[in-house]
């Protein structure tokens, strides 16, 4: 028994390293695609897709400046905290048919908690930089976190509640369980509309979670000159860049796992390794599509909102859409 668990632990450690590496690479690659696509939609050529990698390597060899007013250990620790916490979430996310590496050790509620950690890392780093711009940025990030939590949790809880009604014996908040049972198959017409509304809610939360236009008030280039990140340079900035890339992967995978957990292998009558490869590729394609809709397209189609407008948008319209979705799903279950 002990030898098996030791072996299991070893597998998990190697798996964690592989996933962290893949998460970073895929995240940077997707960031490159996102920038290229946005550029094309804005009628410009845009940077090459490998640009985020080049940025990362360049930043790593640059000087790491710590401002005089900063609190050095917090200032330097914040980017590491942001990166580590976003990579940790990756370990809890299923890819296609492959269950999460740490399935059984945590569920989606844990993920929601972990999702706030990179943001908290940024807030702490911002406050520790001792710059008025970063200070304002950090305050805004906190306000944003408080604003988008409710809609995010609404979407997740609604899905979990529906699962608990259909399969009362299962651990309904486990992502592996949610991933294996798409919401669309469980609901009637009313619930279907509800699920669409929940998807819209999650799609609205994603740009906020990733600090992208229109919800990029904490970084706001033209107002705060980078806000939270204004004092960061060199290695620390590179780490924040990685954290951002990984967080993009996390949000996309979460959306895919919650709403589009379909696989392609059984349609193509594949099996074994081929099925696995096909599913992973299909998963990446789904992630790309979700990213295109939720991030690339949204960020070129809107102006940046002010922080009070961001707060209002999340607390009122988005929250109402989320609650409406929840109500429809409940109604659907009760009527049936």
């Amino acid at each position, binding site marked *: 028994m002990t030898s098996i668990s030791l072996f299991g632990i070893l597998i998990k450690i190697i798996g964690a390293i592989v996933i962290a590496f893949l998460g970073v690479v895929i995240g940077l690659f997707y960031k490159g695609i996102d920038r290229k696509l946005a550029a094309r939609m*804005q009628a410009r050529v845009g940077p090459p897709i490998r640009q985020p990698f080049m940025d990362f390597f360049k930043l790593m060899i640059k000087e790491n400046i710590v401002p005089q007013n900063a609190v050095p250990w917090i200032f330097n620790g914040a980017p590491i905290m942001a990166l580590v916490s976003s990579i940790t979430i990756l370990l809890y996310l299923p890819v296609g048919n492959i269950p999460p590496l740490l399935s059984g050790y945590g569920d989606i509620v844990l993920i929601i908690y972990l999702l706030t950690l990179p943001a908290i890392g940024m807030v702490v780093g911002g406050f520790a930089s001792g710059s008025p711009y970063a200070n304002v940025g950090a305050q805004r990030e906190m306000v944003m976190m408080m604003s988008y939590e409710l809609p995010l949790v609404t979407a997740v809880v609604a899905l979990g509640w529906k699962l608990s009604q259909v399969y009362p014996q299962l651990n309904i908040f486990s992502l592996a369980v949610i991933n294996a049972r798409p919401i669309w198959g469980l609901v009637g017409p009313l619930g279907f509309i509800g699920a669409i509304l929940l998807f819209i809610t999650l799609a609205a939360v994603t740009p906020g979670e990733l600090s992208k236009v229109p919800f990029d008030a904490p970084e706001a280039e*033209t107002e705060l*000159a980078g806000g939270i990140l204004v004092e960061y340079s060199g290695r620390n900035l590179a780490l924040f860049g990685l954290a951002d890339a990984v967080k993009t992967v996390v949000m996309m995978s979460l959306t895919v796992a919650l709403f589009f957990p379909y696989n392609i292998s059984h349609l193509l009558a594949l099996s074994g390794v081929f099925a696995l490869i096909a599913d992973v590729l299909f998963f990446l394609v789904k992630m790309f599509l979700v990213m295109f809709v939720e991030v690339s397209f949204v960020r070129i189609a809107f102006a940046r909102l002010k*922080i009070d407008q961001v707060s209002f948008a999340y607390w009122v319209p988005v929250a109402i859409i989320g609650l409406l979705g929840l109500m429809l799903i409940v109604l659907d279950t009760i009527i049936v």
Partner: protein
Amino acid sequence: MNKKTYSIPIGPVHPSLEEPMTFNFEIYGERIEKVYLAPGDNHRGIEFMGRQRNPIQIIYLAERICGICSASHPFAFCQAVENAAGIEVPERGQYIRVIIAELERIHSHILWAGIAGHELGFDSVLYISWRAREEVLDLLEYLTGNRINYGVFMIGGVRRDISEEQIPRIRKTLEYYKDVYGKIEDIFLKDPTIALRTKNVGVLTKEDALRLCAVGPTTRASGIKKDVRQDQPYSAYADLEVKAITPDVFSGEINGDVYDRIIVRLLELVQSIQIIEQCLENMPSGEIVAEKKLVKLLNQLKKAKGEGIGRHEAPRGEVFHYVKLAEAEVPEIWKARAPTYNNLMPWAPMLLGEQIADIPIVVASTDPCIACMDRVTILNKANGRKDVLTKKDLHELSVQKTRRITP
């Protein structure tokens, strides 16, 4: 309750500013409690340089006061010299001047639209509008040989004629802008996020606009029908019907906010297109410049004595040049007052009580041109420090200077 404010400096170098200018803000939470303006970071001593050059050389210097108003400054300067020396500009020259000036307005307003989009975090607007701006720059290059500093103005007229073959090319560009205008209007006036960010933001009341002598689209957006082209028509504008545009033409109400300034600028695009079309139709034939031989012109100016003023409605508002000729090779005094100088003070009432997020767009909404505006920097020679002069100090200095230059 004791409000604890903190201060945020914007500038001299900041991503939202195109040119160096310093603002110091006292902020409570996200709200602006106090505004301190501290210009003077971009003074280049151009007027001093001008006093060591002859008037024809100054035209090129005036052109380089600002990169965007590179027709407005020489326009006003040439008028000032013509006024002082009593030179009459041939009619065709006047029409060509107006055409170039209006093309410049189109280019400036579209450039501004892009910057406004960028300040709002709406970069797509920036790329789309600056792409549309290329067409007018190409046309200006075709007509004058240069995209930015046209080098077309001359005392007594213009240096280049617009030939019959060139007119279809101008009409093509005007048609292009009639098409593009619909798109730009659609983006700016119908987009919900732009409306969210600009309506009731940076309000300048009619009273404040009058009291602080705002000029150009900034004052027109507050409902004051002030436009040099309408009030004191000069050059070919006297033949054309130019009416000052206020936002109520479009929306039926005047709020004096950033949104209204967008409306005014967009409507002025259409107005400029109409003015150029009228000019092309009515352009008389004949000479384009009063005196072709530069040596002769210089001799004439050397003998001239007197003062002259030139005013022009630049894209940003009224630009004013004053020249005093005193029977010498170089003018005794040359003074340029750019529109941004007038639009400096209105920033204070616009910014007070707004949020930090509004600073970039409110500052950009007057279309500031700091290079134009920075005409004076007071340095304390003893300690090398920049000092702030009170109204009393300035008045005393002015009295001294008036005594010095008027015998």
